[in-house]
């Protein structure tokens, strides 16, 4: 497993479709998040859904793909549109037991972003796992259920 982007771990080049740290595997649920963070209420829905899983101690993976990777970019300032930045809040969720993060690497690259551009997880929390398209289906399949948020 290589290192890319400081606290962010990536095994995207290994081809290993293992479940993300802290989540994934039999019995866990994957929340597939694809929409941009500030245009609609999807992010809020994600938080609410995640709260439910956490309350019932059910392991859950947040999989960020397409425009949803923008939810994790650090340094955004949406105050002008009456919003608060979501990236820190999302990254902090990684400190919760049973919550794992997967980020689709090509979605980042298509937007000119790198793992370094994302908000780093809290110290001690599981690192984000970066997955390439070729391994994404295996990552999805490692969960018992997949919910599109």
């Amino acid at each position, binding site marked *: 497993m290589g290192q890319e982007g400081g606290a962010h771990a990536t095994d995207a080049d290994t081809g290993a479709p293992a479940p993300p740290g802290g989540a994934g595997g039999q019995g866990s649920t994957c929340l*597939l998040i*694809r929409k941009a963070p500030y245009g609609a209420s999807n992010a809020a829905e994600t938080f609410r859904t995640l709260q439910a899983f956490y309350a019932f101690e059910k392991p859950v993976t947040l999989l960020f*793909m*397409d425009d949803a990777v923008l939810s994790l970019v650090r340094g955004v300032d949406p105050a002008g549109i009456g919003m608060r930045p979501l990236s820190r809040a999302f990254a902090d969720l990684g400190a919760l037991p049973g919550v794992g993060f997967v980020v689709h690497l090509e979605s980042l690259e298509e937007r000119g972003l790198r793992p370094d551009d994302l908000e780093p997880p809290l110290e001690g929390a599981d690192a984000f796992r970066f997955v390439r*398209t070729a391994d*994404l*289906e*295996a990552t*999805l*399949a490692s969960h018992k259920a*997949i919910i*599109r948020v």
Partner: protein
Amino acid sequence: MATLHIVRRSPHMARDLERALEVARPGSHVLLVQDAVLAAAEGDASHPLLERAMRAGVAAHALKEDLASRAVTRVGKGVDVVDYDGWVDLVEAHQPVAW
């Protein structure tokens, strides 16, 4: 258990089909419902996407009722047309992912 990618939106209005087919591995299935059935139409600009995936070993299915309600009468070779019962069978037999 193989994955069943369920695509709903039109291939001309969203990238869902493109994404699903990028992610799909040989042996996986894609089910086109609602406006996504347009990709099953022979001659549709998006159909080559589906043809490439089928050549790579992805099985393609399209919902009969949605094809009929969009006047798609000529379905591309290799596309399996299913009814609602067939949809249920596919979901039961695979790991579904909705795009």
